[in-house]
């Protein structure tokens, strides 16, 4: 069932999504400034009370392990950082924009977000565990890496249902099933959406190239690789999306090789133990995923 003019049709579908709110554009602009002040940032966020509430909820979750509960945006920004808070805002907005309309048949949104949250959380834990320094917000990158799946599903839920079924029946990777059934894949489609939203380039590259790391730019390849590896690990930890049960040799993936080239100590680490110990992150992942799905914003906000 290859679809002709797929890109054009999906673009139309993207057109119907609410745009990224102005507040996100403002935040992005502020973050680009060198002398960005935390009061400016918190001021912008506080313009939207329900957004502020959600950001504070996530900031106070076990994930950030703050020493005490924060109740002001300024405090949250000071403690967890500008980039991080801006990302949380982005997360709240994106999950809201992509929330299906009531009554519409969709793929399993809960397990979609569970996989996305797991990928982001694993990326953060991975970097912390193995002392990998990153500038980018990997948690947000993890959250949006598969956003193309939602778009394809919205475009044709029946087609996506068939794709998921093929992964179960034939034990093949989702991307393989997508290419065969609709002739496109979620990474490319995700790239189109992020491009349209004008998010920073690293997020575009994560969404568009997490299955084709060599296409990523030199500057962002490592971030894309960390998300790609975390994506594999999320699947083998049971936070998968679809029915692909195949085994993978993590150390032989492009993602591992790219990270290892910069961090040669990685080769000597007990990756099996790292993957096993991620069981401890289950609660964090479940907690964040719940917030993600429940962090709904008032309907009036929609445009």
């Amino acid at each position, binding site marked *: 069932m290859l679809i002709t003019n797929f890109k054009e049709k999906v673009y139309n579908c993207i057109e119907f999504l609410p745009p990224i709110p102005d507040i996100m554009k403002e935040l992005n602009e502020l973050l680009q400034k060198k002398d960005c002040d935390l009061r400016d940032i918190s001021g912008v966020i506080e313009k939207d009370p329900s957004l502020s509430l959600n950001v504070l909820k996530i900031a106070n979750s076990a994930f950030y392990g703050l020493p005490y509960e924060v109740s002001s945006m300024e405090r949250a920004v000071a403690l967890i950082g500008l980039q991080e808070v801006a990302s949380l805002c982005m997360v709240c907005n994106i999950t809201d924009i992509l929330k299906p309309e009531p009554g519409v048949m969709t793929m399993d949104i809960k397990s979609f977000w569970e996989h996305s949250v797991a990928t982001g959380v694993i990326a953060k834990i991975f970097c912390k565990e193995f002392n990998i320094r990153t500038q980018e917000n990997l948690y947000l990158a993890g959250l949006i890496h598969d956003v193309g799946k939602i778009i394809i599903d919205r475009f044709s839920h029946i087609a996506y249902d068939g794709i998921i079924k093929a992964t179960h029946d034939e034990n093949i990777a989702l991307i393989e099933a997508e290419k065969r059934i609709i002739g496109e894949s979620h990474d490319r489609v995700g790239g189109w959406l992020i491009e349209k939203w004008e998010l920073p380039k690293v997020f575009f590259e994560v969404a568009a190239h997490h299955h084709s790391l060599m296409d990523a730019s030199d500057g962002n390849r490592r971030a894309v690789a960390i998300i790609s590896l975390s994506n594999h690990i999320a*699947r083998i930890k049971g936070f998968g999306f679809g029915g692909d049960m195949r085994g993978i040799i993590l150390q032989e993936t492009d993602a591992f090789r790219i990270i290892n080239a910069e961090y040669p100590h990685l080769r000597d680490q007990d990756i099996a133990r790292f993957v096993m110990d991620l069981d401890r992150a289950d609660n964090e992942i479940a907690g964040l995923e719940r917030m993600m799905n429940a962090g709904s914003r008032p309907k009036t906000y929609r445009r």
Partner: protein
Amino acid sequence: MQAAGQKLTDAEFNALRDYIYNKSGIFFTERNRFQLETKIKERLDKTGCRDAFEYVKHLEDYKAGAAELDELFNTVTVNETSFFRDKSFISALEKNVIPELVQKYDMPGFKQIRVWSAASSSGEEAYTIAILLSECLKDAISRWRIRIHATDIDDNVLKRCKDGKYKSSALRNVSPSLIEKYFDRSDADTFSVKNNLKEMVVPAKCNLINPASCSAFSGVDLILIRNVLIYFDAESKKKVLKMCYENLRNGGYMFLGHSETIFGVTTGFKMVSFVNATAYRK
């Protein structure tokens, strides 16, 4: 509530631990000391020994020792197991490893797969593999030569494996249709595996740290050695894993217990991650 068993003094525990270790490679750490303590009382009572020192002396007696050593191994090893235990492990075998082996050896004149369940206890794991292979091969299985070596250090459990009779509780994870297909009901609570499965499973005694004992299981395609390494110290673990590597055919798989890794013990294997299960490939 006090646990039934025999509190051992440190000196007694050390003497017994070292003796068992030298004979079997099984090493009781402080963490699993209680396992030894809960089980040793039975052996002391049977042999009439007053304490662990006397018991070790009794074991060293060249006449009585050998038989008693078997009894001791039978007593101290853990034998709790059931069919289709650990869903993720079964799924990795069913969806990936077994179809891969079948595809690899599906050649005219070859068609054979050898599996080694290396601490098989009473055989539930070995028969589970027999069922998975039967389900994968279907009618074609009659043209295949399948051997599943079910080995253990404990004679009692090997006898149970050979008998192939199990309580219904051991079958709690098996679907009714598979029970119907592969078991006969002996009485209200006992099921016997059917002969076609029995023909595939070959029970044998094997001490994993004794190379001569393991040489019969070389050239296998799949080794299941689950929850055994915890009993070995680093040195014995190394020896056992080296032996497994050598006994595997190229491209063959080894599965360890859920929380065991080979890190720092052996290289050579490639770690293959399945959903919630890890295998090591040669």
